[in-house]
């Protein structure tokens, strides 16, 4: 199963400054968002994980989107990934 990950608003700084990642996950398993966050922690995070995760959750100030919709609209941690899904992590900006 192929999933696209996008990090922006500064969240990419935790992932080697790379904004766009395409990952392959074993399709025979089911992948919840919760499981994906763990996978990201183990496989992609370059820096200290506490900058991205707080317990099982994404840390405050990072908005999570599943196919351009707030993950709150699709079940948050329980959402089950589909092939070709696009998951976006946006760090909220405060500057002006």
């Amino acid at each position, binding site marked *: 199963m192929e999933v696209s990950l996008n990090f922006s*608003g*500064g969240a990419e700084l935790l992932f080697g400054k790379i904004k766009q990642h395409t990952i392959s996950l074993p399709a025979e398993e089911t992948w919840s968002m919760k499981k994906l966050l763990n996978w990201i922690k183990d496989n992609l995070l370059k820096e200290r994980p506490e900058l991205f995760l707080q317990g099982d959750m994404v840390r405050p*100030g990072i908005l999570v989107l599943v196919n*351009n919709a707030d993950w709150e609209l699709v079940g948050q941690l329980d959402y089950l990934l589909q092939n070709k899904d696009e998951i976006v992590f946006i760090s*909220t*900006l*405060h500057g*002006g």
Partner: protein
Amino acid sequence: MSNTEEQKEIAHLRSLLKDKEDEIARLKLLIGTAGLPEIDKEDPSGRTPTAARHGHLTKDEVSRYSRQLILPQVGVEGQKQLANSSVLILGAGGLGCPAAIYLAAAGVGHVGVVDYDVVEVSNLHRQIMHREASVGVSKAASLAQAVRSLNSRVRVTVHDVQLDGSNAMDMVSGYDVALDCSDNPATRYLINDACVLAGRPLISGSALRWEGQLTVYNYRDGPCYRCLYPTPPNPQFVTNCSDGGVIGAVPGLIGTLQAMETIKLLLAEVKPDTSNHCRIGPSFSGRLLVFDGESAMFRTVSLRPKQLDCAVCASPQTRTINRVQDVDYALFCGRGPHDKDEGLRILKGEDRVTASEFRNVVQQSLEMERRPYLLIDVRPHLETSICSLPDSVNVPFENLEERVDELKELVNRHLARKDAGQSPLSVYVVCRRGNNSQLAVERMRTLLPADWPVVIKDIVGGLQAWAEQVDPLFPIY
């Protein structure tokens, strides 16, 4: 003098003359605007736009707004609506400048500008309505002046005050719509709460580096800022434009879109008449625009609805915030409303030297003609090409771990050079403002073997303090 030299000289004099002529033109403009009516100070109560008084548009107004007047979504009723509307711009910076100027140009009747800061040179690359001559002047007054000189029909109110819990409600209630053009989380939560409690929609923009975000909060049944972000981010993860950098055109674009959303929101209030069925309204209520200038990508995403358990926009029975005066926003966010760096205090006094003390260390070593210390600059490599202290070695803070061998080797070389029996080797760590240098000292203490005769200290206030206390010619950025 040779011919080419003469030509060069003439060209130079011509350019000087041109500069002087531009200056005269600018001064004439200033004198011209000085004759116009005074800008209101702190009086957002009355609403006296021209069109409202007449109930129709004057000949001047028709010509002035003709290009938008003939759009079916605007029309005479829409133009009158704009003239009858009032808009509060919270922040006269990179977002507030274009937002205010487009709203004034479109004929919004009353524009309020809130900002407590003064214009700085480092603002000019993005806060485009301020002028070189305005450096040191109140930003709110400077932007108000720009608005007035563009459209003298617009009433402008300057709020040259620090927005806080005591004044936010009065300010926001005095206008139909608010634009969040601020630059820090504490102010953003305060603005949101004041808008929710005063029942005003909020057009929110933000920008950093190459990216910008835009959304509309508290419009009809849409969510508010707290619905999206019930918990504030740790201040450690909040980057401002001063630390992170920003391309000026990004807030330029986002501020312009804030003006656009505001105009659409105001026009939505026009009663539909039978000849004009064009309904219009804001596009970003419950939606977020994410712009990435680096890859030229615009993304529009759907946001969650208004949250029933929101601390401020839930029903009066369930909400926990009833008055903004009761909330300590700096405490809530872990940091106050100032964009400026509020120095970290991690190291104890004896683990730090001031810039002046370090100057003495340098001076002594010059007299002794040898350098018994090591100076490590932990800024990103890119910044060392802007300016750096002589004899400093660059090991960026973020690379300390991966470059630990290099660091050990460096310290070792200096230790070997040191006379036997001499006091421990002094290692000084410097950064831009004295925050990362403290973290770097802590980290280096764990990275270097504990039994090495090394004393690591940082320079308080970093290179900025060096420029302020020791070398006035040293660049500050």
